[in-house]
Structure formats: structure tokens, C-alpha cells
């Protein structure tokens, strides 16, 4: 590919470009122009990847015109792509669903306000599995998103549009959302970095609710530094989200310029044996072994640990998340939002006609599953028991981190990106989240970063840390990224 000016600019980190814009070395619109050129080249719209659903030309132009440049503006002029379930008031927010077709929020999410306050511009909303229910971005009412490296494959999901946009080199940073791995899994499939913060670290105000005890806004970056920068801007307490927590936000970039030979001296990395089953692809195991070797060479101690309830995470997740979704999605009734279909039986008929025509098959399946596990006679057997086992999963993490382990290293996914349409059995699709759902159930921070490739397809390595210790997780990620160098993408 011929290197053209926009590619040269997008090859620089978001931090570097923002700094150049903030100090006047680059014009304010430089990064936006580069992103728009790259979007056209990469065919991110329906004609190509189908990663972008909605675009906005006037908003970014107005934001740039109003931008008061100063050196401390961390995202000056940086375009950030936004998942379609985060409320923006200049573009639709449809959650990939026909039931919200044309809906434009009258308010914007706290994370959107913070991005714009930091100087970012928001030129596009990205495709997703309907209401974030899926692991492939095949479940969107607006068509599936394709993998940037192989258009016969899926980019992962549910934040597949944001992952594809970043992987295609269109933006350096994008926002997604996580309920069971919806940032880390597509990040792994697409060969980029994806961070899920601690539950309570980032405001959910304006993130359309799927499963409220699990949902978090997450950040994609082309590099660890891009993701760390995005997280730095959106993290922190918000009066509009009572589940955000008053824990100071650390400097997530602390590990960025640590050139010591052994920057991880004193850091203990745990390898949970349950995440390395005998069925794991040996090539994936080899890449994880290489990552562990690099961490050792950086001074870390790597030891095997056990999280014995890991195999229960998917059964627990697929009870808890649908249960919460069945309640959260009750609001889409044809009266308050979007689609309204008149039925044959008065008010009830209108509700049923609207919801059955507005929701796709996977959302319908999960609403029914969630309603079933909460219904009389089944609540104790399913929901109550799942919540008890969820506590056991959380206790596993608490015990391991209390034993002196600082971060955990695991594969992010059991496979690389799979071929579109190849997983028709719902539970087989759900198993895509087997290594990621635990972090959402326990509320701990976790991230995926590229650690190599199998047959040309990216493989993600997952790091997890204790509650609110994103700083240590990112410090390890920076060091691993630097140690792997080009190996992370070969």
C-alpha cells in the first residue's frame, strides 16, 4: 500500500497527534481529514466492511471551530468512533436494532461529554450486535460487519464495528461497551487493544442498558497508549451514575516510557490453569508461552494459579445477563421509543406486535430466557443459584489477588476470528466468551492486546487485574507490547 499523507498521520499515536494539534504544529482538522480519507479508502460503510452506521460532518466541524487549543488538551482534534449504543445527540443511537430506528437521544452520554471536553471529535457511530447481544456483529438489524483482514470472517462482537474501524486504521481510538467480553473479544479477533475497566470506573450514564450489573464502557486503541489515553479521559466519578466509585484515577501512562531493562521487577503474573485447557489450540498456547517468557525477561515472576469456578462462568452469565436484559428492554414498548406497530388486540396487541417486529431473533431469545429464569417456580433454581455462583467466581479472583498476584495472563478467546455464518447453535456462540465473561461477573478490569497470529489471523492475550488497578494492568501491557514489538502482529 502506497504511503499517503493521511496514513502517515494515522500511523502516529493519538497522543502525539493531539499534542501536535494542541501546540499548533498541525492544523486542528488534520486528524479528522486523515480519518475521513481513511474511512473512504477502507470502505467502512455498507459498501464494504459495514462497520459504520451513522456519520456526522457538521458536529466535528463545529467542535473544531470552537476548540480553544492549549497544550493540556489530551485529545485535541482526535477522531473517536462511537458504538451505536452510546447516546449522542447529533447522530442516531439505535443499538443496532430496528426498534430504535431513527432514535436520536436528547442528551449525550457522560463519556461523550468527556471526550468532547478533551478536544476529541466524533465523526461516526459504529455497528454492533443488536443491544450488544452477540459475539460476531452478525446480529445487527443493519447487516453484519466484516473482518478488515478477511471479509469472509467476523470481527467479533458485540462491538465489532468499533474494532473494525480501529483495525482498518481509520481511527486510533474507539469506544465500545462490555457486558461479557464485547470489547476484548473483537479486539483479539482484529489484532488491536481493547480495555474493559473495573465496574464503577467509567460512567454508564448514556450507555443504553443491557445488563446493568455487568455493563461498562470500554476503549479500543491501535496501541496500548491509545487505549490508555482514551480511558484516562473517560474514567472517574459521575454524579449521573451512582455506580461510579470514588477511587482516584491513576496515571495510566506511567509505564509508557519505562526504558529500564526489567521494568516489571517485583510484578507477579498469574497463569490460571483453567484458562489453558487441554483443548486449547497448541499454537495459541505457544503464543501465550512466548508472552509469558517476555514478561519473565522483563523481570516479572510468572506462576501458575487456580480460579476453580471458571467453567461455570458461561452458565452463570447466560442466566444473569438475560435476566437483567428482560427487565431493561421492557421499556421498548412502542410508546416511548422508536418503532410502533399497531396490533389486533388493543394495547397488549400493540406491545406484542411492536416488540416481535422490532427485536431480532437473538434479542427475542434472550428476553424469553431471562423472563423464564426469573419467573415463579424457576427463580431459585436458576437466577438465585447463578447469583450465588457468581459470588464464588468473584471470590476466586479476590483470593488470587490477595495471594500476591498483581495481574493474570490468559488467552482472550478460545479461537481466532471465525467464518461468518459458521456458528448457528446459540450456545456454541456463547462459548466465544468463555475467557472474558468472568471479568464482567467479578467486576475486575481486563484487557486484550495482540500477541501474535495463527494462519494470518490475530491472537489476543488477556491481562486481568484487581478492582480499580487498571494502572498496573496497563503498565504490564505497555512493557509486553514493547517487548513483543513486531512479533505481536506476525
Amino acid at each position, binding site marked *: 500500500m502506497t504511503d499517503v499523507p493521511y496514513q502517515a498521520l494515522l500511523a502516529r499515536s493519538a497522543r502525539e497527534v493531539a499534542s501536535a494539534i494542541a501546540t499548533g504544529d498541525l492544523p486542528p482538522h488534520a486528524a479528522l481529514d486523515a480519518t475521513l480519507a481513511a474511512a473512504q479508502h477502507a470502505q467502512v460503510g455498507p459498501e464494504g466492511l459495514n462497520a459504520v452506521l451513522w456519520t456526522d460532518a457538521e458536529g466535528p466541524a463545529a467542535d473544531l471551530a470552537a476548540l480553544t487549543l492549549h497544550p493540556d488538551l489530551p485529545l485535541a482534534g482526535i477522531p473517536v468512533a462511537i458504538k451505536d449504543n452510546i447516546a449522542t445527540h447529533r447522530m442516531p443511537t439505535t443499538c443496532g436494532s430496528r426498534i430504535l430506528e431513527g432514535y436520536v437521544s436528547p*442528551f449525550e452520554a457522560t463519556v461523550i461529554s468527556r471526550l468532547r471536553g478533551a478536544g476529541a471529535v466524533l465523526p461516526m457511530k459504529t455497528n454492533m450486535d443488536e443491544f450488544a447481544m452477540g459475539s460476531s456483529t452478525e446480529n445487527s438489524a443493519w447487516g453484519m460487519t466484516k473482518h478488515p483482514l478477511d471479509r469472509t470472517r467476523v470481527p467479533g462482537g458485540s462491538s465489532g464495528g468499533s474494532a473494525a474501524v480501529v483495525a482498518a486504521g481509520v481511527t486510533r481510538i474507539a469506544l465500545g461497551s462490555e457486558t461479557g467480553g464485547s470489547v476484548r473479544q473483537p479486539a483479539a479477533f482484529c489484532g488491536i487493544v481493547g480495555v474493559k475497566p473495573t465496574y464503577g470506573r467509567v460512567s454508564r450514564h448514556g450507555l443504553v442498558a443491557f445488563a446493568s450489573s455487568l455493563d461498562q464502557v470500554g476503549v479500543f486503541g491501535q496501541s496500548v497508549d491509545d487505549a490508555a489515553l482514551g480511558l484516562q479521559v473517560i474514567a472517574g466519578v459521575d454524579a449521573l451514575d451512582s455506580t461510579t466509585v470514588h477511587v482516584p484515577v491513576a496515571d495510566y501512562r506511567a509505564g509508557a516510557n519505562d526504558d529500564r531493562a526489567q521494568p516489571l521487577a517485583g510484578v507477579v503474573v498469574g497463569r490460571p490453569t483453567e484458562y489453558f485447557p487441554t483443548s486449547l489450540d497448541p499454537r495459541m498456547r505457544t503464543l501465550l508461552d512466548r508472552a509469558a517468557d517476555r514478561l519473565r525477561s522483563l523481570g516479572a515472576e510468572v506462576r501458575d494459579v487456580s480460579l476453580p469456578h471458571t467453567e461455570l462462568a458461561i452458565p452463570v452469565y*447466560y442466566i444473569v445477563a438475560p435476566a437483567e436484559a428482560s427487565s431493561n428492554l421492557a421499556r421498548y414498548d412502542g410508546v416511548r421509543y422508536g418503532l410502533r406497530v399497531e396490533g389486533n388486540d388493543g394495547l397488549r396487541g400493540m406491545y406484542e406486535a411492536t416488540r416481535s417486529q422490532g427485536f431480532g431473533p437473538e434479542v*427475542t*431469545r434472550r428476553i*424469553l430466557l431471562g423472563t423464564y429464569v426469573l419467573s415463579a417456580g424457576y427463580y431459585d433454581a436458576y437466577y438465585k443459584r447463578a447469583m450465588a455462583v457468581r459470588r464464588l467466581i468473584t471470590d476466586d479472583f479476590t483470593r488470587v489477588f490477595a495471594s500476591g498476584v498483581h495481574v493474570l495472563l490468559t488467552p482472550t478467546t478460545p479461537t481466532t476470528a471465525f467464518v461468518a455464518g459458521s456458528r448457528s447453535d446459540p450456545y456454541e456462540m456463547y462459548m466465544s466468551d468463555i475467557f472474558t465473561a468472568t471479568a464482567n461477573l467479578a467486576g475486575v478490569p481486563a484487557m486484550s492486546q495482540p500477541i501474535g497470529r495463527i494462519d494470518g489471523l490475530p491472537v489476543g492475550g488477556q491481562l486481568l487485574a484487581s*478492582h480499580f488497578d487498571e494502572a498496573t494492568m496497563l503498565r504490564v501491557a505497555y512493557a509486553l507490547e514493547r517487548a513483543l514489538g513486531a512479533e505481536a502482529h506476525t
Partner: protein
Amino acid sequence: MSVSENDVRHVATLARLGLDDGRVQALVGELNGILAHMDVLQQVDIGGASLDPDATHGLRMRDDVPSPIPLARDREAFAPSMRDGFFLVPRLATHGTAGAADDEGEG
């Protein structure tokens, strides 16, 4: 435990979802297939697991006063129809005269 067609129809009613017969039959198989994987939870010893909320970090109490969400534009700008400060929604066929010319906006 296995899900029957009646179970699917019952929860569909609770969830306000209209399903045709073919979809009901398909969902019986799909839900039973999924729930079969949940049975493993019945074997877990949960004796030591607490269901109390984790109060490690606590939730801060705030004053019990309404705090308006800052809107990007006035309510009138995004509401389909308003009168006297109230949102108007379409009249339902079961309320009043269905099909009247002024049907819209009498909710």
C-alpha cells in the same frame, strides 16, 4: 427441568412478545438446548457463597433531590407532539374513536 410450548407461550406473554406457532416450536428446542448447559449449576456447592451485596467499595448516598439531566435541546424539539407541557402519544384503537381524523395526539 425442560421447557414446554406452554412455558414459551407463558413467558412470551409476560415479556409482551408476539410469537407465531412456528417460532414457539423453534424456541422450545433452543431454550432447552441452552438451559441444559445451566444444569451444571445445580451440582455446585454454594454453601459458602453470600448473596449480600459486595460493600467493599460502598455506594455513596446522595441527597434525595431530583437533578435534571442536561438536554442538548428542548423537549419540544425532540417530542413528536406536546400540549400544555405534556408529551402527547398516539391514541390507541381501544381508547376513544379509532380512526378519527384527529386521532393523533389525544393520548
